[in-house]
């Protein structure tokens, strides 16, 4: 057991190191120059702009050799410093991320978990109900294949603008200040609803399809047939099949939860929801090295953590992994 996790931790650490290095390198290989973007439209004369260019390069630590930048990056990282955003200069990257992440969690965690629960239940139900399998499941395929942008705009347009039931932008009313009042909480939920529903629908379709296929496979498995041959009631057979079919779904869930911090980029753009997805887009478009790095670093860490948790969960829920563990350390 200890050797198993020891080995895992080494793997995780080296993955982290590699991913972070790539994360550091990519924005620097991207075309463009963040300082130029910062200085865009400074109506200076050519010779003074050079001064400002040097000045801000120094402030961002971009005036030193690349290998030194790399070392400084790691040093800063261990101090929890992800640098200063160029786009949002002079805000700190960590501050920007910390402000955005709560919205992502608030929006995505319920969307993912509820769709996981409902989608799996529904998929399992559809697998044994012929008419559902023939009607709703194609709908699920359609939902997952729908360009999300289109679905989002359709929802915003129909329920937001035409019906006027839900607000279409922001995380809470533009006429409110955050406070612990019912008005504010209600507004928060109202604004949350449409992006939530759009995400829920799309995720739901995915889970349902996955579960439907998995459970059909499990119901055809030998252990199911044995139980049936011994006259076990269908409920027991289905319960077993469901439990086993959900295992691969859990892996998918973990990965999705891991990228929660990445936000649902398109959702956040369509509904003007102030999560981190919006910042990733902005940061890439504006060559904001530090913000890009920061956002992706968060994603890397979350994905690794999620994977690690899943490794542990799997050991608990699926005895087959445990045997692999024994075999692995033998």
């Amino acid at each position: 057991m200890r050797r198993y996790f020891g080995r895992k931790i080494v793997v995780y650490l080296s993955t982290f190191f590699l991913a972070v290095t790539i994360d550091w390198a990519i924005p620097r290989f991207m075309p463009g120059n963040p300082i130029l973007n910062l200085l865009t439209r400074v109506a200076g004369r050519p010779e003074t702009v050079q001064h400002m260019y040097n000045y801000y390069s120094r402030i961002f630590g971009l005036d030193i050799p690349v290998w030194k930048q790399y070392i400084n990056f790691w040093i800063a990282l261990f101090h929890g410093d992800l640098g200063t955003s160029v786009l949002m200069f002079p805000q700190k990257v960590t501050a920007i991320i910390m402000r955005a992440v709560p919205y992502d969690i608030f929006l995505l965690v319920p969307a993912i978990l509820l769709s996981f629960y409902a989608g799996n239940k529904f998929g399992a139900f559809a697998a044994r109900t012929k008419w559902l399998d023939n009607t709703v499941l194609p709908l699920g395929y359609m939902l997952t294949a729908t360009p999300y942008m289109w679905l989002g705009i359709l929802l915003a347009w129909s329920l937001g603008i035409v019906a006027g039931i839900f607000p279409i932008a922001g995380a809470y009313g533009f006429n409110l200040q955050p406070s612990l009042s019912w008005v504010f909480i209600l507004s928060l939920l109202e604004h949350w609803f449409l992006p939530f529903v759009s995400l829920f629908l799309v995720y739901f379709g995915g889970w349902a399809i996955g579960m439907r296929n998995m459970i059909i496979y499990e119901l055809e498995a030998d252990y199911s047939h044995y139980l049936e041959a011994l006259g076990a009631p269908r409920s027991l057979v289905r319960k077993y099949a469901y439990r086993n079919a959900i295992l691969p779904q859990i892996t998918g869930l973990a990965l999705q939860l891991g990228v929660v911090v990445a936000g649902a980029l398109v959702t956040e753009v369509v509904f003007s929801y102030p999560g981190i997805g919006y910042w990733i887009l902005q940061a890439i478009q504006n060559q904001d090295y530090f913000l890009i790095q920061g956002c992706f670093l968060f994603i890397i860490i979350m994905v690794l953590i999620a994977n690690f948790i899943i490794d542990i969960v799997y050991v608990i829920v699926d005895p087959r992994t445990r045997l692999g563990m024994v075999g692995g350390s033998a």
Partner: protein
Amino acid sequence: MKKVFIWLLVISMIVVFSLVGCKEEAAAEEEEEMAEEEVAEEEEMAEEEAAPLDIPLGFSYDPAMAAAILADAGYVDTDGDGLVEAPDGSKIELTVTCPFGWTDWMEAISVISSSAMESGINLVAETPDYGAWNTALMDGTFNATLNNWASLSNTPWTLYNLLFRHPIVDLMQSGNFGRYENQEIFDLVDQLAATQTDDIAGMQDICGQIQTTMLTEMPMIPLWYNGLWSQWNDSVWSNWPSSAEDAPKSLPTSWSGYWQLGGLTTLANLEPVEGVEAGTGTYARNETLYMSGAAWGAFSDLNPFLPGTKANSTGTIGLLYESLFQYDPLTNEMTPFLAESGEWTDDSTYVVKIRDGIKWTDGQTLDANDVKFTFELGQTYPGGIWYAPMWDYLDSIDLVDDLTLQFNFTAPLYQEFSNNLYNIFIVPEHIWASRTEEEITAGINENPVGSGAYEWDAAGVGPDRNVWTKNNDWWAIDALGMDVAPNKIVDIRFSSNNVALGSILKGEVDLSNNFLPGVAELVNKGYVKSYFPEAPYMLSANTAVLFLNTTIAPMNDAAFRRALAFAINTGDIVNVAYANLVKAADPSGLLPSLSTFNNY
């Protein structure tokens, strides 16, 4: 996410390598061109003498003329592919660019490309990433690209200073991106800069010379006036400025750097619509103005000295901090603001009197010391303050008394200085004097103390909004009889134009300064209002100019550039790309407010 990583890596590798490659090629070509150019010019002269072509100075879309100029200069289609080859027989392959995602410009360059192609000029539209585009623009590694960075100004110099920025250096960051070298025109622009702003005849004369050279040489092509995008819903606030006879006249805009150009006046003219209820929100609906289109991102700082446009907290300049003067582009007049008066007492001395009784929001008095301090920051921190170059010709600032300053110049650039009078924002010395260079040039400036009509509302700020609260003790209420109507301003950042459009239709937002394609239709139907009830609907804000990289063949040839100017179907850009939301630009490039200086 894995996919994104790989994608980014691959793309970035490709682009990096291709950029490196391009640079080397360009350098090699340049040398060749230098040698060839002289020969070409001689040949050109000989031909022109033989059959002088009558080309009008002000260009317009005229494919026949474009063809004639091309043929005259030796650009003919030798291989029959419908595209001309250079006089030396080499193929012409050029690109016209704009950043990806700037949809209106993307359509515009596709019109530019297709109309050039029709005239036989091989010009292909490309849309690189913003960062790549920006770098190519400043490095001079593009072929042809759009740019519109000259701001609304009281002087024609502002535009020509951008178009003919000199000297040419490695990094052309703020103008003359096509690296057009012409000492004659550089001298004229310098001469214009040093002309008094009230010397209209002198300015006209110099502008005429600049325009004549510009339109003969065609180093860049002014194409259309970008609109001052603004549309509003008058269900909560009325008395918006418009072209209607009885309506007030000012810029209906919330853009950063436009409050002092009439935005404040618009706020002062607004009247609440009767019968609107306060509602249950924190901010009473009937006292709050909701606007969008100014903020490009979430709140980042309140520092008026940071580079960039301050677009993330649009009120920092104009609502919070104020300038000495205001400039009204509709009347082309400058009016004293923080200043009570300002005048040139002789050729190199400018005296400003500050209004008496202006208070900072912390109760301290705003006086000449604050103005002196603010202007002198440019002298103290030449690396980080954008107006530092003024100190090349500004010798010193003397305090005459608490409210009077005297600027002592050596060889003043009157036009630049007059721009600065309404673009430098005065900060309180008693707060800023103790700050370090980094705090001043790169600080957030939390809890700001300003003098303006609104105060920063720290409690209201959200990731997608800034909130401003009216300063009831604002000096201008008494001094100018100017009182801004909204008690609160909520400045919203929408992440997509669809949302902005939906919000203005629903009346959740009163004023939108976003570019909303197709808004003309909504104005026609009366859902929203704009400055003009018909095309072009919007006021003009700046000139979109097609910069041509004059360092590469064949765009180092004036005849070729001129032919291109006649080949571009500006009408289609206006009608098709913008659906009549813009106007075609005057060939001089000057905005309608400066049409007095069109003199070619």
